[in-house]
C-alpha cells in the first residue's frame, strides 16, 4: 500500500490530472444518476439528460426566439441557460468545457486509458486528413442546426451517440428494431474512439464545433513564448486532441480543450502557460494546427 507521503507526492505531481478526472467524474456521475432516476423514479419530476445538454439550447434557440419562447420538444429553459453559460465560459476561458465537464469527453478519455491498458495501438490520423476531418464538426454543427430548424424537432437526438450511451435507454428500454441506428452509431463511435483519441471531439462533435468557433474570441488562451521555447516538443505528446502546441503562434489552436496537459508537460515553464490576452479573432482555416 503506498504511503501517505507517496500519495501526496503523486497528487502534487499529477494535481491537474487528478482535479480534471474528479471534475469529469462528478459531471459524468450526475448525468448517469439523472438517467437512472429518470427511468426508475415514477412519483417525482425526474428530468431526462436532454434537459442538461447545452447543445439543446443551440438547437432550440431559433424556435424560442422566433416563436415567442416556444421550445423544441425535449428541450427546456435549462438548455438555453446552459448554452448561455457555455458561451460566456468559452469567451472567457476557451474550450475547457470539453476537457473538464463534458461526460462524453470523459468517456473518450476513459476509452483512451483502456486502449493503453490493453496495449492496443493508437491510430494516428495523417496531418492533412486530420485537418480536413476537423471541418466535420462545423458541417455537423450547421447541418444539425439547419435540420432541427426545418423539422422543428431534435433531428439529431435519434442517433446522437452521447444521448444513446448516457441516456441509458439501451439498458432500460432496449429496442433493437426501433433504435438500431442509434446503437450502431454509438458502437461505431466507441470503436473509432478506442483507437483514435477523442475522435468524436476532433471530427464530429457539433457542440465542439461551436466551442471551437467561440474559442477564437476567448480571453484566456494557452500561449507559447517563442523566445523561451527550446523546441523540445514534449508538450505535443500528452495533448488528447493532438494540437501542435510546439508550434503555437503564439496562442494554441481554438480546438484546445483546456486540459492543461501540455502546460504541465513543458519542462521550461516560462515557455508555455495560460495567459490573459486580447480577444482578437485569429481564424486559421486551412493552416496546419495538428500533429495527428
Amino acid at each position: 500500500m503506498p504511503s501517505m507521503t507517496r500519495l501526496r507526492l503523486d497528487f502534487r505531481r499529477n494535481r491537474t490530472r487528478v482535479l480534471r478526472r474528479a471534475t469529469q467524474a462528478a459531471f459524468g456521475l450526475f448525468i448517469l444518476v439523472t438517467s437512472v432516476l429518470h427511468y426508475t423514479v415514477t412519483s417525482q419530476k425526474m428530468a431526462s439528460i436532454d434537459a442538461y445538454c447545452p447543445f439543446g439550447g443551440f438547437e432550440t434557440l431559433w424556435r424560442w426566439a422566433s416563436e415567442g419562447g416556444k421550445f423544441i420538444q425535449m428541450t427546456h429553459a435549462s438548455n438555453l441557460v446552459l448554452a448561455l453559460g457555455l458561451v460566456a465560459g468559452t469567451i472567457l476561458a476557451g474550450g475547457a468545457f470539453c476537457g473538464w465537464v463534458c461526460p462524453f469527453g470523459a468517456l473518450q478519455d476513459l476509452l483512451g486509458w483502456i486502449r493503453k491498458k490493453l496495449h492496443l495501438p493508437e491510430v494516428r490520423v495523417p496531418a492533412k486528413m486530420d485537418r480536413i476531418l476537423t471541418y466535420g464538426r462545423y458541417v455537423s454543427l450547421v447541418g444539425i442546426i439547419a435540420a432541427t430548424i426545418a423539422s422543428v424537432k431534435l433531428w439529431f437526438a435519434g442517433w446522437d451517440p452521447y444521448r444513446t450511451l448516457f441516456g441509458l435507454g439501451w439498458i432500460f428500454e432496449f429496442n433493437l428494431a426501433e433504435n438500431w441506428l442509434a446503437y450502431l452509431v454509438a458502437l461505431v463511435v466507441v470503436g473509432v474512439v478506442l483507437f483514435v483519441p477523442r475522435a468524436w471531439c476532433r471530427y464530429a462533435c457539433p457542440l465542439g464545433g461551436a466551442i471551437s468557433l467561440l474559442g477564437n474570441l476567448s480571453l484566456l488562451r494557452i500561449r507559447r513564448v517563442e523566445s523561451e521555447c527550446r523546441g523540445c516538443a514534449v508538450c505535443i505528446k500528452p495533448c488528447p486532441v493532438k494540437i501542435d502546441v510546439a508550434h503555437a503562434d503564439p496562442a494554441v489552436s481554438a480546438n484546445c480543450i483546456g486540459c492543461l496537459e501540455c502546460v504541465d508537460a513543458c519542462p521550461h515553464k516560462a515557455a508555455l502557460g495560460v495567459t490573459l490576452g486580447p480577444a482578437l479573432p485569429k481564424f486559421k482555416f486551412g493552416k496546419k494546427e495538428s500533429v495527428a
Partner: protein
Amino acid sequence: MKAMRVNKYLMPLLVLVALLGSVFVAKASGTWKTSGRGEVIVDESGRPDPAGIKGWMTLEGVSETYGVPLDALYVMIGAAPEVPAGTEMKMLEGLLPGTSVSTVRAGVAAYLDGSWTPADGKYEGGESHE
C-alpha cells in the same frame, strides 16, 4: 497589448463558474426548468401531437389529452381491464411485453388519423411518429 500570464487553473475555473453560475442565477430567478411535465405538445394545426406522449404520462392522461377513449386505449395496447388507469407509459413495457411509449405514440397517431379503430384489436403497427 501583451498577454499576461495567469494561474492555469483559471481556465477551467472560469468555465465552471460561468456554467454553474448561469444555473444558479436561473434557479434564483425562477427560470430554470428541466421538464415539460404538464405541457402538451401540439402540432402545426394546434392539435395535441402524439409524438409528445411521454414516459411519465398515465393511461388516463393520454386518454384525456389526445381524446382517445380509455377503453380504446386498453384495446390498442392489449391491456387487461385490471391494469390501473394511473399506469405510467414507461411502466407499460414491464407489464405488457412488446408495448412501449413508442407503440402508444404510433397507436394514438393511427387512431387520430383513422387508420386504426378498436375493432381492429391490439395495435400492431410499430412505426413511431416521432
